[in-house]
């Protein structure tokens, strides 16, 4: 079984059920958007998959169980994620950020030596995420959108096959959104992508499939059109301005 398979996933915090029995199948090459109101358990779901939150149930990726493994082990299996607020190493340069992301498999001897040349995969990622020009700037000086791209670039060099992106376009300008969307399209050729997003416009343009979560459960699943037509979804979003970005 390839792709990400989630069965009966539950996460509780001190008795509060954040995720209550989620089943989810994301096949290889999918671009899956997960939407839902605040507190629906979207980010917690990603936390559980990446090992940050303790969870019950089962999560397999390419047939291997993820739950119970440590965060860095899961990352080494090809599961990469970004965060709502872009978290890059601000004091380090773009190049250094990418070089670190490309490096977990390096041996001690390589680590203890100085980097002499830009590794080819880093070079390529720089071009893909359009940051070649700012290669030597500290990541802290990048614009907001650039930081998100840097994070995606880090996932690329990390050799992640599954990208879990938590609100990648929040706070971006229209142009940046479009660029990000195109980037996702480009990446979907050889990666599986899961995006948590509030921006309905962005979703309509770039999602292949959509999962709607509500109160820790999956409410609806399907193509954009199918989901939009689902009356339960409309009910949940009633009173919420659809497309509102948080």
């Amino acid at each position, binding site marked *: 079984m390839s792709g990400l398979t989630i069965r009966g996933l539950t996460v509780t915090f001190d008795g509060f059920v954040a995720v209550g029995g989620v089943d989810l199948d994301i096949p290889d090459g999918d671009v899956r958007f997960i939407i839902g109101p605040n507190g629906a358990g979207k980010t917690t779901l990603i936390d559980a998959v990446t090992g940050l939150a303790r969870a019950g149930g089962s999560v397999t990726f390419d047939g291997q169980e993820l739950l119970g493994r440590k965060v860095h082990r899961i990352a080494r299996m090809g599961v990469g994620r970004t965060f709502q607020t872009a978290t890059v190493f601000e*004091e380090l340069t773009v190049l250094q950020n990418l070089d670190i992301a490309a490096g977990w498999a390096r041996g001690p001897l390589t680590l*203890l030596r100085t980097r002499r040349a830009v590794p080819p995969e880093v070079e390529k990622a720089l071009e893909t995420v359009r940051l070649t020009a700012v290669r030597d700037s500290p990541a802290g000086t990048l614009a907001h959108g650039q930081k998100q791209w840097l994070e995606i670039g880090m996932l690329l060099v990390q050799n992640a096959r599954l990208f879990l992106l938590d609100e990648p376009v929040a706070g971006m300008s229209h142009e940046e959104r479009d660029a990000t969307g195109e980037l996702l399209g480009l990446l979907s050729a050889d990666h599986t992508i899961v995006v948590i997003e509030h921006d309905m416009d962005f979703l309509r343009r770039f999602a292949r499939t959509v999962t709607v979560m509500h109160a820790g459960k999956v409410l609806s699943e399907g193509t954009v059109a199918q989901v939009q037509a689902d009356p339960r979804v409309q009910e949940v979003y009633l009173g919420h301005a659809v497309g509102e970005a948080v």
Partner: protein
Amino acid sequence: MRRPLIGFGLAAVALFGVAPLVLGDFRLNLLAKYLCLAIVAVGIGLAWGRGGMLTLGQGVFFGLGGYAMAMHLKLADAGPGELPDFMQLYGQLDELPWWWRPFANPVFAMAATVLLPMLVALLLGLLIFRRRVRGAYFAILSQALCAAFAIFLIGQQGTTGGTNGLTDIRGFFGYDLNDPLNRRTVYFIIAASLLAVLALTWQLIRSRYGELLVAVRDGEERVRFLGYDPANVKLVAYVAAAGMAGLAGALFVPAVGIISPALIGVVPSIEFVIGVAVGGRASLVGPALGAVAVAWAKTALSERAPSAWTYFEGLLFILPIVFLPGGLASLARLRPSWRRRQARIPAEATP
């Protein structure tokens, strides 16, 4: 990449050329002591400034190195088959305790001065970092460790010399420490060690590992998601810093002629940090210069006004950290930062 080399050259000329010519025997010996503190400071700079681990427990490693060296020198002074003087006076033993015996071998003792602290740091680090004890918890735990180790040493008077520590060290691998020429050689050994430690740290800082260490400092969790185990990354810096403290402790013994629990407890361990904070925790030479400057100020001020020194020391902890977190090294960097060059600080800031 030329500048660090020039800096190194200047430091070497100052330490090996100028200082021995300008300073008399007594002051040169003092400088030797300061340089030992500087070696500890370089390690703290690595662990704290680069790795974000405020190690308030360097006294333990300093002590391990110092005791390992002093045990060998005491045994050498006593001569084969004899007990060190303090054991004859205060101990209830007729023969050397088993854990003293290996230290009679000079090679074992020399290796132990660095390897023993590193081993202890490795074990501790494995326990502490794997369980994600960090920040304030780590700082307080390392303080508690110092307190426990000092109390332990004091309690074992018959075999460790208790509060007195190991004193009256006369020879250094066969050379008489009373001879001013030999004391001078000790100074040169210490100065060379400092330069070697600086070179090693410089390489660590500018290597890929050095970049990774900064990444762990600034986003330990984030690094995890990149497939690294931050515990291992921190461990390397922690163990390296422990080794440096051990080396410094070992060199302190022939320079000062004493190692005692007074150099290990909570207070001396936190005092090791002060020079690092003043000089600039994240820079390479900042900690070393800061440590020497603070130690020098302590000697100079306490010769004139003892109570003024305590006030001054208090202010040294407060003012630089509150108003100049980057330490004096950040002043030296002001100009380049106007030009908005790289925000990378460390390697360039050689004097």
